[in-house]
């Protein structure tokens, strides 16, 4: 191309637009790619068209992606399972039961207490999630059936380990609800009806435990994920 008169610029601008739209044939596109590397004027034209045309896509109404996608993406990029919450808090993972319970209790109190007693309400929900998004469990209390409905998006425990689900009331020790050795997408977990009044405002947490569950009756391993039930059904 000789010089850079207005006609050349117009031609280049249309060429840049066609490249942005993807209208060029393979050869022309390769040539345009080459110019993008070497020709700052063409690069600027291309950038302007990219901005202009993005407005077309920007007008498409947003749609929430399913929550599990974030976990999948992070797993693909960062690999591995859930990072233990305690490690992130700067605490070692080999903790005794009492300290473990205390830490869990601390997490609960951080979640906000000091609220008056209230009646248990049906339909309480929470998400038991790890901070890095690699564990996500949607939990719903079915008060009438005295059961916990769990929709699980997480890896199961490694061989020889178990995951244990705890109910940690606003005041009191963690109560074991289930030992999970194998993950299914949906689990309905019946519980004793007298636990129901403890549930509003309580924390649900998953800890890593030896196969068969905690030997002490309190959490002994890392807390993998937690979520706090609301005070009232929302």
């Amino acid at each position, binding site marked *: 191309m000789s010089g850079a008169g207005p006609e050349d610029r*117009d031609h280049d*601008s*249309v060429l840049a*637009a*066609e490249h*942005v*739209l*993807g*209208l060029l044939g393979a050869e022309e596109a390769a040539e345009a790619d080459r110019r993008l590397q070497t020709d700052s004027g063409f690069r600027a034209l291309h*950038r*302007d*068209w*990219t*901005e*202009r*045309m*993005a*407005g*077309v*896509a*920007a*007008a*498409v*109404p*947003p*749609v*929430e*992606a*399913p929550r599990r*996608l*974030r976990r*999948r*993406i*992070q797993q*693909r*990029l*960062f690999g591995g399972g859930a990072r233990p919450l305690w490690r992130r808090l700067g605490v070692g993972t080999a903790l005794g039961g009492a300290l473990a319970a205390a830490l869990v209790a601390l997490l609960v109190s951080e979640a906000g207490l000091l609220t008056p007693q209230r009646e248990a309400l049906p339909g309480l929900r929470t998400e038991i999630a790890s901070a*890095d*998004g690699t564990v996500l469990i949607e939990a719903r209390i079915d008060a009438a059936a005295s059961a916990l409905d769990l929709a699980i998006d997480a890896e199961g425990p490694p061989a020889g380990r178990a995951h244990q689900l705890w109910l940690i009331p606003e005041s009191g020790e963690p109560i074991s609800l289930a030992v999970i050795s194998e993950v299914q997408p949906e689990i309905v977990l019946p519980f004793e009806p007298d636990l129901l009044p403890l549930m509003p405002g309580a924390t649900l947490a998953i800890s890593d435990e030896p196969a068969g569950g905690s030997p002490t009756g309190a959490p002994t391993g890392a807390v993998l994920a937690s979520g706090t039930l609301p005070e009232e059904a929302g």
Partner: protein
Amino acid sequence: MTDRDELERIIARVALQDRKAFGQLYERTQAKLFGICLRILRSRAEAEDALQEVYVRVWHNADRYQVLGLSPMTWLITIARNHAIDLLRRRRVAERSGQAPIAEAMEQPDASPGPEALTLARSDGDLLRACLGELEPERSEAVQGAYMFGFTYAELADRYAVPLNTMRTWLRRSLQRLKECMSR
């Protein structure tokens, strides 16, 4: 701090491999990008796969964001649009033996806003909308169809029942006019 500044700050941290910033970027932009993937691919399963790939690319290319000189949303939208269009074109090639899917592509499969949603709805698209509005409706639609559905000249010529060269001339003139209008 404006949204744009905030997003640029987050992308700069993602470029430094900050996973938490990546989580923030995802939360702020996933609905927009998922909407675009869904609109282009018209299949939830494909849009979900596409969105994963888009954010993997965002993570790996964040360090190149700054040199491109694009606004943060344009950068993200372009990654999503280009990837979705690639998938769509591959699918179209695979489908070519069957019925031409092109005629259906601008129609909507579900309850999401219809073809008229291609007309722009947001205030920051006002100028683009106004300028697309200055084009003949068919030409405006052809420009947007090329962008949102990756139509080639041949597919557009087929769709509007004009010779290939006529289509080429049409679209190039339309792009030229669009640029003039938006630069005014």
